[in-house]
């Protein structure tokens, strides 16, 4: 008898464990006055702080523009520091996943953090929209069910890398290029797309080198690159490492006059601080803001009024669009029952994936089944001495394809 009771208790316990995430994990019930809780996981410390803070400001303005309230419930935004790496992403995602009130997450800033963190969020049924993870594998159909709850409002690097290669080959007319990446998902896949496209166009890749994040002495690896005498160096890394490469290139014999190019991950005034005068004449690929319409000009005015500064990284508008996308979808799926609001996160994820033609700051957003929502316009920017003196990235595209 005693054993039977024990067995019964054990079975009840097991059932309750299995039942809890299935029911309570996917449906969030808000009583009167309880906030609609969104959590961000941007990078808010370290060399790439500007990337995350820029996004955070975009998100805050978006919530303000939405009216701060959703069906009578206030909107709450708080978050974690995902630190632009897998460890930080894992820690931030675990903290967010442990909070049952979170309805959707916004982030992360860097693709390697997303690769580690998104499966953790999705295990708890939290859908996530990223404003700045550009690595192709995150929305690759082969990414698997762990990434079913993942969307992004920024471009896919399959596009950015190809444009960089076309620019180098057709526009600058270089035939020999080298690349460096830092082992992060973002840099590794971007340089691979670049190299593949560059080779397809008829160019030669003299070497595809790699360093570790946090390295400072790039001179040895640059000397190795110089031995292949390339005319063009592509290093789509983050701010600190890109800054070191830019400075030290001028000091390595054979690379004094090489054309340099990085990507949106280091398109920030902080990069000019890190690279100094050496950034003169260097190229960056980044979203084209000059092509955006009136709504973006209005956004800039609001940004200036609220924070007393201009945006400092390329992804504030994408974050704005991501937040509006989430809020619109919540608005669509939330069920009002008297004073309570019931949100099914599975339905929310589905609704977000079905977003069509949402008028955003960065263009019309239409999400596909894999989670790519962007309408990407990528331009090439060139840094001049005046930009360095002013401490701002060039606002005018140097070249664009369309």
């Amino acid at each position, binding site marked *: 008898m005693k054993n039977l009771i024990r067995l019964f208790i054990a079975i009840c316990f097991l059932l309750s464990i299995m039942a809890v995430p299935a029911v309570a994990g996917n449906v969030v019930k808000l009583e009167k006055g309880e906030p609609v809780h969104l959590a961000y996981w941007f990078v808010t*410390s*370290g*060399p790439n*702080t*500007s990337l995350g803070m820029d996004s955070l400001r975009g998100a805050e303005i978006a919530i303000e523009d939405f009216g701060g309230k959703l069906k009578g419930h206030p909107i709450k935004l708080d978050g974690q520091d995902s630190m632009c790496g897998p460890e930080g992403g894992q820690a931030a995602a675990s903290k967010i996943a442990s909070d049952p009130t979170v309805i959707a997450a916004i982030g992360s800033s860097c693709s390697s953090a997303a690769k580690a963190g998104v499966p953790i969020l999705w295990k708890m049924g939290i859908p996530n929209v990223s404003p700045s993870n550009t690595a192709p594998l995150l929305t690759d159909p082969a990414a698997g069910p762990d990434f079913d709850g993942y969307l992004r409002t920024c471009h896919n690097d399959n596009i950015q890398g190809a444009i960089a290669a076309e620019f180098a080959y057709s526009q600058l007319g270089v035939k020999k290029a080298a690349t460096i990446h830092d*082992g992060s998902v973002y840099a590794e896949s971007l340089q691979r797309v670049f190299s593949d496209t560059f080779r397809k166009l008829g160019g030669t890749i003299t070497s*595809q*080198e*790699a*360093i*570790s994040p*946090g*390295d*400072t*002495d790039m*001179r*040895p*690896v640059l*000397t*190795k690159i*110089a*031995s292949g005498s390339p005319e063009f160096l592509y290093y789509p890394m983050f*701010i*600190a490492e890109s*800054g*070191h490469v830019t*400075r030290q290139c001028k*000091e*390595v*014999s054979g690379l004094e006059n090489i054309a340099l190019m990085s990507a949106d991950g280091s398109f920030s005034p*902080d990069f000019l*601080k*890190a*690279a*100094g*005068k050496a950034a003169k004449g260097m190229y960056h690929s980044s979203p084209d803001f000059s092509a955006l319409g009136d709504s973006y000009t209005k956004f800039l005015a609001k940004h200036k009024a609220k924070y007393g500064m201009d945006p400092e990284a390329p992804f504030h508008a994408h974050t704005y669009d991501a937040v509006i996308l989430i809020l619109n979808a919540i608005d669509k799926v939330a069920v009002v029952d008297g004073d309570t609001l019931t949100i099914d996160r599975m339905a929310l994820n589905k609704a977000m994936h079905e977003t069509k033609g949402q008028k955003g700051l960065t263009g019309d957003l239409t999400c596909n089944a894999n989670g790519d929502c962007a309408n990407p316009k990528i331009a090439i920017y060139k840094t001049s001495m005046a930009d360095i003196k002013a401490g701002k990235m060039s606002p005018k595209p140097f070249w664009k394809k369309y």
Partner: protein
Amino acid sequence: MFQKWKDRVTVTDIVMWMIGGTLLLLCLWGSVSTIRAGLYTRSHWIDFCIFGLAQGSIYALIATGYTMVYGVLKMINFAHGEVFMSGPFTGYFVAMALWRSDFLDTHPILGIIVIFGVAMFVSTMIAYFLEKVAYRPLRNAPRLIPLITAIGASFFLQYFFRGLYGSGINAYPDIEILEGFWMIFGVRVLKIQVIVIIASVLLMLVLYNFIMMTRVGKAIRAVSEDKEAAALMGINVDAMISTTFVIGGMAAGAAGVLYALMFKQVHFFMGFIPGIKAFTAAVLGGIGNIPGAMIGGVFLGLIESVAPALFLDGLGIIAPYQLKDAIAFSMLVMVLIFRPTGILGERLSAKKA
């Protein structure tokens, strides 16, 4: 003779020798095929060596701090990387102030001396108070406790400086006289690297002579050999331990500014990796031994710079520089297996005995 030898050797020994031998052969094979492939010219190799020497001499300066503290306290001061960071991070604000007022352009040498002075002062103070506050109360505690305290102190200092100066990126201004090249025996060498190497060598010579020639140095050596006996001989042990931290802090502060002048960027986390590398260098050279730390540092810098191209390129490994830390740390493991006392460790113990 052979019988005796056979009795002493265990299976583990043989396996270890085989691993070591295989690695050595791989390195040799890699080097031979790299050189035969002829990818790099003589000037490339000279460049690799100079880059390595400059980086290594900074490791060496930091490593002396680890090794001296280990000598007197028999503990690893894991917060030494943060002592290294505090100086140049503070010096950055001095440098920017001097640069904005054009002082750095008109009086560059005086300006650099001021930056060095401030940075070394801050690092020295941090090291001094670190010992006073964090380590002295635990002087007689079991050895694990100060070690954990050191890790705690390291975090405390990192986040203290993050709170104080912010977490964003900062870079030292470009100083005109440190830019450009010198031709030395027909080899193009960066000015800043020549300065880093010469300054480090000078500092290390001063430091070594201080320890070997002066009365205070002798007292420090006495404390590191036997604290009780030194106290009985009338040496103020506490004062000597403080002095050790002060010297280590000064060396770290100077190394920090040299590092910042070479790489420009400073931030609150900058001490972590050089700290770990310098610790590796200290162990490599034989911890507790000052010339050992210097040799270990230079050796590590050279290995990091030369080995990926020399050993791995020939083996057909793609992107070898990603593995430079792996090479440095495997080197450490190998040295610890085959020579647990480090490169110069044995000589010291022989002298002591």
